């Protein structure tokens, strides 16, 4: 985790270096800092006090506490009882846990690439200079703003239920209906569709990235005889790779945490046949309906470790494929 945070810090520092003022970024230690004085230190801690308090009381402290709880049996009403790694061994023998991990893994592995592909495709389309671009951009962004709301989950359920609108469309194409909500084989495509429907946020970020690619690069490549596909592969993709990386990271982490739509669509059960039992949903059930808080804490830490490993892998591999222009290190 610490490796990833410094990487992120460096990235953020790069952003400021590109800005108008030449000012040392806080993430980059060392050279050329103006002299410090004690009143600055006092002011620094005073201004930072809300964040420091919040971090200590509501993030760091609770993280340590949940790390401890992960090794205990605790139900909120009795004192926690230390049980070693029993929670973890129980986890990996718990079929519902394994199912929830599987459901989430499929959702992340399929949903995120499809969503990003849609976002990139539409961003490329919108990037062609035509009238109405700004309006379309806003319109396509709208689902990202409401997608996680209970309202949309209710609409989704009504549309994909037996004899619903989705069934009518299927019947139109001569396919058998039956509803997606009640069919364990169809709930995942339904959830992924809901995620892809919210492609607007990464699309907006892609568009901003595309705007930063200097036109001269495309012109130079065209002069050298590169066709549109070659230019896309050799100019657009490398120039866009930092933004692609950012989107990949954020969407992956976000996808691991999907909760409310699955909760509403399945009526709080994770069904049918646990096919919408996403990881955080099962964590909620264990922690807050069964009050097995030690067990749920163990689950939370497994999630932190998995997301941490994935983040680390993304950062590691990013050195090979993410291309930073003008980044002097």
């Amino acid at each position, binding site marked *: 985790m610490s490796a990833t*945070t410094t990487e*992120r*810090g460096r*990235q*953020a520092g790069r*952003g*400021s270096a590109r800005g*108008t*003022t030449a*000012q040392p970024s*806080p993430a980059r230690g060392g050279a050329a*800092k103006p002299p*410090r004085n004690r009143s*600055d*230190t006092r*002011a620094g*801690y005073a*201004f930072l006090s*809300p*964040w*420091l308090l*919040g971090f200590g009381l509501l*993030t760091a402290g*609770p*993280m340590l506490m*949940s790390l401890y709880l992960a090794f205990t049996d605790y139900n*909120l009403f009795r004192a926690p009882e230390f049980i070693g790694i029993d929670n973890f061994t129980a986890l990996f023998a718990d079929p519902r846990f394994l199912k929830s991990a599987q459901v989430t893994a499929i959702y992340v592995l399929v949903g995120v690439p499809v969503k990003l592909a849609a976002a990139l495709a*539409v961003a490329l*389309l919108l990037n062609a200079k035509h009238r*109405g671009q700004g309006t379309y951009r*806003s*319109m396509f*962004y709208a689902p990202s*703003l*409401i997608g*996680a*709301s*209970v*309202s949309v989950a*209710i*609409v989704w359920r*009504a*549309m994909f239920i037996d004899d619903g*609108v989705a069934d009518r469309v299927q019947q139109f194409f001569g396919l058998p209906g039956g509803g997606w909500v009640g069919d364990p084989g169809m709930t995942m495509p339904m959830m992924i569709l809901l995620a892809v429907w919210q492609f*607007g*946020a990464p699309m*907006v*970020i892609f*568009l901003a990235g595309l705007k930063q690619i200097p036109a001269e690069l495309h012109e130079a490549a065209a002069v050298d005889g590169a066709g549109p596909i070659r230019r896309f592969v050799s100019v657009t993709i490398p120039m866009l790779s930092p*933004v692609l990386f950012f989107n990949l990271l954020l969407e992956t982490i976000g996808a691991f*945490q999907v*909760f*409310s739509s699955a909760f509403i669509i399945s009526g*709080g059960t994770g069904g049918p046949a646990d096919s919408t039992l996403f990881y955080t949903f099962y964590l909620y059930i264990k*922690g807050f309906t069964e009050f097995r808080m030690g067990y*749920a804490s163990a689950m*939370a830490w497994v*999630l*932190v470790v998995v*997301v941490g490993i994935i983040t680390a892998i993304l950062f590691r591999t990013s050195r090979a494929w993410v291309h930073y222009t003008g980044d002097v290190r």
Partner: protein
Amino acid sequence: MTTAMTTVSATASAVASRKKRTSSVVFHVLVLAIAAVILYPGLWMVMSSFKPNGDIVGNVNLWPETWTLDNYVSALGGIGGVSFWSFVLNSLILAVGSVVGIVLSATVSAYAFARINFPGRGVYFAIMIGTMLLPFHVVIIPQYILFNSMGMVNTFLPLLAPKFLATEAFFVFLMVQFLRGLPRELDEAARIDGCGHWGIFRLVLLPLMRPAVITSSIFAFIWSWNDFLGPLLYLKQPETYPLPIALRIYVDQTSVSDYGAQMAMAVLALVPVLLFFVLFQRYLVDGVATQGLKG
């Protein structure tokens, strides 16, 4: 000779402009097709809320054959003796409280990160960025235990206190990025005029941070308005329910029978969000765009 040249170039430009027009038509056809797919669920929701109850599920057509307001009448009737407006009020208190908390805490914290040079700042900044990547589910159980032990379950405090303590790093980061774009000479000038850090922040930089404050406020409002997990954990009495929880209870209660009222309530719950979107779309979309570029 010259006339021949002009004719050639005229034809060439005609071809070019026709080509441009064709590509423009293709563009608009494609984009409108995408727009239709994207907008359909939202339009279906709004239009369904005006259809008679039996005519909603499975009706692909958007336009209601017969219009009715019955769905809104039953949606506004409330749940189990608690008025619909009580849920709206709870949602409003939470959302406005979140906005106030986030604006207060994120602006001062961002000032410390962006403008004050003190030992440990780099480490704190890295940690702050790191919390953006942290699955927040790791803290919900201990936070619940903490707030429960202080007797704060069924109050708004567990949902509002974190906002006043800048726990949502996204907002701090957004404001740090904005502050970094403001020239340092402003600080220097104010310092020469005798301002301390509080003066520089309050009198010089805060007024200039308006765009970042507006963007953050809108996001803070919408995220709080749509938040489901937080209220689900902490608010268990109907009098304290915000709209998303009320909506869920409503759906569970009416189940299959009353899709009309469900749609009407879903629409009502989204009205403020859509209002903000229509009024401030530029701020929202640009906020997302800069966040991605600088992150």
